[in-house]
């Protein structure tokens, strides 16, 4: 198909041709085109269907404010919905499809909605789908959902890459129009570090769309020259295709750079980068957005904003038709007529709502003053327009200008409110700007070229001056103050047909009036009731008209009605860009234990524990399921010796003259009395008296302790200790350092553990039971002189040690221990066997210390010392927390020993009803005990310590299970602890 609407001139490269597809039809365009301009060039005015009524719609704007020309871009997993054709740079092989129709774009089956429009008014869903209630979930919602929305997701994983980055600058200039370029140039020439970001791929803003002269050359040339100078400077980062979408605290801005979206093949580079820009100061030069006028059938393809028509003609060498009428309420709209005439196109009529003489003399163009366009005729385009005076003009396109709105959005991201300017009939930035931001050019209501340039320079100068960079006074390029007078004129009252205010959400003048009649009078309510201003364009072209109509209905002024709040993002940001690289396994980092490699080589399966990957069991040949492995490992540790990497436990090195006194404050029990060379179990409380964490702490020297924490709380315990040290007892002589990563630590547990360690620990260290009894600790060497620490502690309940070596020896230490253990049939064990053995011994973990239980509950109430001050001690004594009939930690076994216990079951007395009122407690941990041959459990039950032998019911409504269990001691294995001391 030929580019029938292509005209002369423009900033496109006619020497090259680009082939692209729209709805499976091939078209041609040129480098420099957007998808929108290329579609217009090929006379493809119909681009999509509207949201609610499925009306034919076309390109309406030339920028990111586009409400209607939304398409699916690319295909397969790469498909992206709701892409604005006005922002898509054309590339070879581009594939786009239209959205929101059943059947073809030309013959959309859902266009039937348009005939039902009298019923589909504001609040239709709220009013209609009220009853019967049961219909909602099964019937109404699925139907509405299938019909709702515009684009469709690919429903596949996004194969594109996204990244994030950080940038720093003295001055961030947002927008590379005349004002932004001038601001950036002023700052850059003064030596400041400048970032200039613009959403367009070509710097210049409106200069590329207008025929204005500047400094004796065309505005386009000036923009290109200025951008080239900026690009050549080391202190400037020019960022085209970059939208600054949010203004955050302390001079931080969010920006989205579209890096490879304009390329057929991204070459493996990230598609988009989300930047966080740290600026000392910023100049917002975001320009202005033109707004339409509401009149009957004002939504047909071929009806466009006047500035956009100008932009397509001047920049893209494209016209939506050969006979383009203009409808305006301001001087600026006249420029469209002038530029089109200059391009040799016919402008049959310019309708100006103001009853005043022509601001520009345009021979051959009929000027009708004081009238308006009331209706249009056509189906997939415009055939004619009807004026309020009844005159009909055949046209094939209509350019509409209702004036311009400064883009104040970023000035409001910190709750700033814009103020109304009567002379512009528009909101301009208010006084409460984000700290460090200044506004220049059209964004600030300086609507003419000369004023925009001057303000860009002045704001940059003032911003740099604020932190001591002096700019040289440079002459501004010569430019004119073009006529810009405007009048308030929002909608054509005489229109009898539906007049669209919000083209993206199909909100009409009537809908707004109806919402007001029904009581939705606040502008925020109006937005939510009618959906005006929602979705991808956030009402950039519609909000003001909506407010004006609401104000009119309420008999108020627009500033009295106010605006809705502008929030980030300015334009849509893909979720993929917000996620960056943090997806899949990189969603969050994970850590490997020192013996990970050995474990991998020896059949380990891994499980995530906190942010660590730990071996959960080691499968040996012939084992059919995980239970085979776990049972074997638990038995090996009880009968011979087992080895487990316990590096993940937090390790905190505590030194200083007051180290012991400090530990007394942070632990419920006492540590200052602990002898050097001994270890003690410690229980830590929260300040509210609830159990927080537990572990062992070893006294390695007079002023040197080594604390262990649970894996899960390693980070937060350290944080809390620092809080206690710096904020509560700042004069204590104590210092902390986390050594979790410094030492690889292994539990060696079982009756043969000492025999095994004797082969590894150098012979000059006596580890006999007499010299190194239960709860001893000390420095040793292994394998002929390697530094190590030995602790005689036991989580398994067996005679056991933990041996620590510098982390870099961790993997070989694991190998050495297992090699040395071969003669004893030693088995490495994982977290599952570890869990089985601790349940057999009634030791607590996170299941029991779950943030709801006290020392009293776990049977360690006496451990909370009353003789000294410690965190949590006072509130732990609250009556409710120390009730005699409080739940206590005990053991449970099924009465029918073949039954499997269910963690999370609640306990109920034998004949009590199964409800919360009769709840007696809950099961926290269960395991199959290979040493006992049946399932065992730990749990909390009221006064459990006094109920040994009682039979209760364990009920889990979630699993639909109920069984009888017997209350027993939590110490299933070796209750006297003889093995520990052996």
């Amino acid at each position, binding site marked *: 198909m030929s580019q029938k609407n292509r005209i002369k001139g423009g900033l496109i490269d006619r020497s090259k041709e680009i082939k692209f597809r729209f709805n499976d039809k091939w078209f041609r365009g040129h480098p420099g085109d957007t998808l929108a301009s290329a579609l217009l060039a090929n006379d493809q005015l119909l681009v999509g269907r509207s949201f609610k009524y499925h009306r034919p719609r076309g390109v309406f704007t030339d920028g990111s404010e586009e409400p209607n020309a939304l398409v699916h871009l690319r295909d397969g997993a790469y498909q992206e919905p709701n892409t604005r054709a006005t922002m898509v740079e054309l590339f070879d092989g581009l594939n786009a499809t239209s959205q929101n129709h059943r059947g073809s774009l030309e013959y959309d089956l859902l266009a039937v909605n348009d005939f039902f429009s009298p019923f589909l008014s504001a609040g239709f869903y709220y009013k209609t789908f009220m009853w019967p209630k049961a219909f909602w979930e099964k019937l109404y919602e699925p139907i509405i959902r299938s019909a709702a929305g515009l684009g469709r997701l690919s429903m596949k994983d996004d194969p594109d890459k996204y990244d994030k980055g950080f940038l720093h600058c003295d001055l961030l200039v947002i927008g590379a129009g005349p004002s932004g370029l001038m601001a950036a140039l002023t700052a850059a020439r003064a030596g400041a570090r400048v970032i200039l970001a613009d959403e367009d791929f070509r710097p210049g803003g409106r200069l590329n769309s207008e025929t204005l002269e500047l400094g004796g050359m065309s505005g386009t040339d000036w923009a290109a020259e200025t951008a080239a100078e900026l690009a050549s400077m080391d202190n400037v980062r020019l960022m085209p295709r970059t939208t600054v979408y949010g203004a955050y*605290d*302390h*001079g*931080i801005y969010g920006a989205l750079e579209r890096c490879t979206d304009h390329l057929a093949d991204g070459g493996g580079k990230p598609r988009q980068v989300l930047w966080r820009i*740290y600026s000392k100061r910023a100049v917002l030069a975001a320009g202005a957005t033109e707004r339409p006028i509401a009149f009957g059938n004002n939504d047909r393809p071929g009806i466009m904003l006047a500035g956009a028509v100008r932009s397509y003609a001047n920049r893209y060498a494209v016209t939506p038709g050969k006979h383009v009428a203009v409808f305006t309420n301001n001087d600026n709209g006249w420029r469209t007529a002038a530029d089109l005439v200059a391009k040799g196109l016919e402008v049959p009529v310019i309708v100006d709502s103001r009853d005043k003489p022509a601001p520009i003399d345009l021979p051959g163009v009929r000027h009708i003053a004081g009238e308006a366009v009331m209706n249009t005729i056509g189906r997939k385009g415009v055939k004619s327009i009807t004026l309020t005076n009844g005159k009909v003009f055949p046209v094939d396109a209509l350019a509409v200008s209702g004036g311009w709105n400064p883009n104040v959005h970023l000035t409001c991201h*910190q709750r700033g409110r814009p103020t109304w300017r009567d002379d512009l009939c528009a909101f301009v930035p208010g006084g409460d700007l984000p*700290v460090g931001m200044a506004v220049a050019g059209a964004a600030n209501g300086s609507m003419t070229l000369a004023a925009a340039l001057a303000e860009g320079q002045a704001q940059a100068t003032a911003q740099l001056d604020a932190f001591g960079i002096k700019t040289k006074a440079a002459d501004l390029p010569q430019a004119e103050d073009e006529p810009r007078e405007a009048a308030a004129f929002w909608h054509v009252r005489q229109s009898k047909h539906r007049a669209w205010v919000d083209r993206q959400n199909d909100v009409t003048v009537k809908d707004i009036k109806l919402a007001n009649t029904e009581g939705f009078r606040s502008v925020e309510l109006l937005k939510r009731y009618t959906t005006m201003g929602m979705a991808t364009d956030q009402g950039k072209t519609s909000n003001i008209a909506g407010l004006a109509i609401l104000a009119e209905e309420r008999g108020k002024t627009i500033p009295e009605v106010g605006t809705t709040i502008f929030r980030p993002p300015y334009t849509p940001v893909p979720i993929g860009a917000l996620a960056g690289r943090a997806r899949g396994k990189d969603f969050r980092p994970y850590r490997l234990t020192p013996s990970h490699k050995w474990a991998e080589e020896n059949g380990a399966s891994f499980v995530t524990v906190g942010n660590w990957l730990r071996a959960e069991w080691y499968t040996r040949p012939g084992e059919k399921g995980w239970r085979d492995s776990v049972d074997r490992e638990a038995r090996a540790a009880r009968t011979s010796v087992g080895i487990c990497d316990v590096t993940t436990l937090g390790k905190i090195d505590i030194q200083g003259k*007051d180290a012991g*006194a400090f530990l007394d404050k942070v632990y419920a029990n006492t540590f200052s009395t602990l002898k050097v060379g001994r270890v003690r179990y410690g229980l830590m409380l929260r*300040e*509210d008296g609830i159990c927080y964490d537990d572990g062992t702490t070893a006294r390695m020297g007079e002023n040197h302790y080594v604390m262990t924490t649970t894996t899960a709380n390693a*980070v937060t315990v350290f*944080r809390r200790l*620092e*809080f206690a040290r*710096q*904020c*509560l*007892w*700042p*004069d*204590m002589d104590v210092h902390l350092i986390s050594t979790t990563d410094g030492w690889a630590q292994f539990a060696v547990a079982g009756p043969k553990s000492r025999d095994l360690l004797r082969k590894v620990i150098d012979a000059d260290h006596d580890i006999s039971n007499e010299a190194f009894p239960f709860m001893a600790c000390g420095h040793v060497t292994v394998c002929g002189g390697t530094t190590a620490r030995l602790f005689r502690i036991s989580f398994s309940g067996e005679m056991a040690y933990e041996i620590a070596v510098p982390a870099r020896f961790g993997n070989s230490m694991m190998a050495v221990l297992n090699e040395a253990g071969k003669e004893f049939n030693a088995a490495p064990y994982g977290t599952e066997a570890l869990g089985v053995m601790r349940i057999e011994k009634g030791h607590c973990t996170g299941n029991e210390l779950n943030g709801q239980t006290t020392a009293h509950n776990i049977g360690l109430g006496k451990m909370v010392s009353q003789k000294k*001050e410690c965190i949590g*001690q*006072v*509130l732990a*004594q*609250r009556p409710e927390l120390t009730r005699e009939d409080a739940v206590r930690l005990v053991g449970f076994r099924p009465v029918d020993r073949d039954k499997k216990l269910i963690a999370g079951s609640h306990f109920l007395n034998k004949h009590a009803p199964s409800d919360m009122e009769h709840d007696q407690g809950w099961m926290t941990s269960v395991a199959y005990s290979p040493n006992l041959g049946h399932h065992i459990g730990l749990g909390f039950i009221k006064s459990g310590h006094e109920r040994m032998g009682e039979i209760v019911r364990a009920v889990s409504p979630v699993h639909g299970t109920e069984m009888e269990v017997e209350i027993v001691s939590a110490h299933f294995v070796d209750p006297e602890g003889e093995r520990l001391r052996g």
Partner: protein
Amino acid sequence: MIIDHPLLGPRDAAEFVYLGDAALIDRPDWQADDAMEQFHSYGYLRDNPAGQHQELWYHEQGDRSWLVVTRNTVTHEITAVELARDVARKRGRGK
């Protein structure tokens, strides 16, 4: 947000962990007659001002200093950043 660390200069708030009201420094005397009352207030009752607020931030991804940051909760303006240890000493805390 950017926090001007007294030792390290301006740092992104993302490097810090937030705790809350700097009143947490004023831990009551455990031996006071009304210790239970006092600890209850200390643990559970906080002012929630719209405006100036002294609060505790921990430079976890940095030098592990606890800081007292004076921040306006409405504007996020930070007017003072001190080492919590210095504040604690000024408020009479010792060993």
